């Protein structure tokens, strides 16, 4: 493949506060037609997290918990698995397979600058195949 993560990543990231309600996250996911939100750290010592549709379904809705009262910070996945923008796409793919995750965030210094999902990788592979 030969490309680096920054060449295929999506720089548009939807964020949410750890104190927001799960219901608010559901509204955002539906409105934006996305499957995950980046959860902001509560303070300087805290790290980023991610909340996905999977978290919401298994940890809240399937357990009949009230999405209006459960906070994002209680159900989000932490720590976030991140890569640097210069990581080769092959390495990223291995990391996704090893950790069984559908997206990886891209970190520069201590800031999240993008995200790569399976869709981005599929697009990348199809484009590279078409160029051959």
């Amino acid at each position, binding site marked *: 493949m030969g490309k680096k993560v920054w060449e295929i990543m999506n720089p548009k990231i939807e964020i949410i506060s750890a104190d927001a309600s799960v219901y608010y996250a559901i509204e955002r996911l539906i409105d934006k037609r996305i499957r995950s939100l980046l959860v902001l750290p509560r303070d300087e010592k805290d790290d980023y997290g991610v909340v996905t549709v999977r978290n919401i379904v298994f940890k809240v809705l399937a357990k009949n918990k009230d999405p209006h009262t459960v906070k994002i910070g209680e159900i989000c996945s932490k720590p976030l698995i991140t890569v640097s923008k210069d990581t080769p796409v092959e390495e990223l793919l291995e990391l996704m397979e090893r950790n069984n995750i559908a997206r990886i965030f891209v970190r520069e210094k201590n800031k999240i600058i993008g995200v790569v999902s399976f869709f981005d990788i599929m697009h990348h592979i*199809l484009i590279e195949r*078409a*160029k051959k």
Partner: protein
Amino acid sequence: MLEKILKGGKLEKKIIANIKNYLNILYSAMECLKNVFITKDIERAHCIDNLEREADLLRREIVSTIYEGAFLPYIRPNISTFIEIVEKAFDALKTCAFEFRYLNKEFFEKIKDEVIKIAEINLEMCEILIKAFQCLIEENNLRERNLAIRICEKKIDEIKQDLTQKIRQREIVNFWEGKNISEFIEALVKISDLIEDASDYLYILDISLR
């Protein structure tokens, strides 16, 4: 069969070679436009005019050779239409380069990343279009190329949305400045639309010849 229909005689071979050249010139013009954006060197934009003139000569030659009797009559209009779509991409490139000369450079700095990204994807699409044409001739997998071009076009649509949001934040105080920005962006994103149309046309041509 397809190869026989398309590559039959002398005239057909001449047209195919000219179309390949025509598409290669499009690629060079797109590369030139990308470099103009990166270097912000307005003088370099003239290379697009030169390449467009060269392509125009080639287009006339292709069309006249077609009607000299190359290809079966029912294929001729299809090939002419394909060439006309690519010609529109040249027009969009030319407009884009022309408008860039008058674009406020301070404003360009704010949209530079998105503009260069679009120019890169346009170039990638053109590279795939060249492969797609080769696939048509060789009866290869044109469908995969067509899909890749659609993926690229979707990416450009997404960038266009971000770009529009940024542009709307700018207060336009002068009619000509507004017209210039609008026409620049319009032409830039139109290139990918036209490449997608050209690729779709090749795909239809491929299916109709089976």
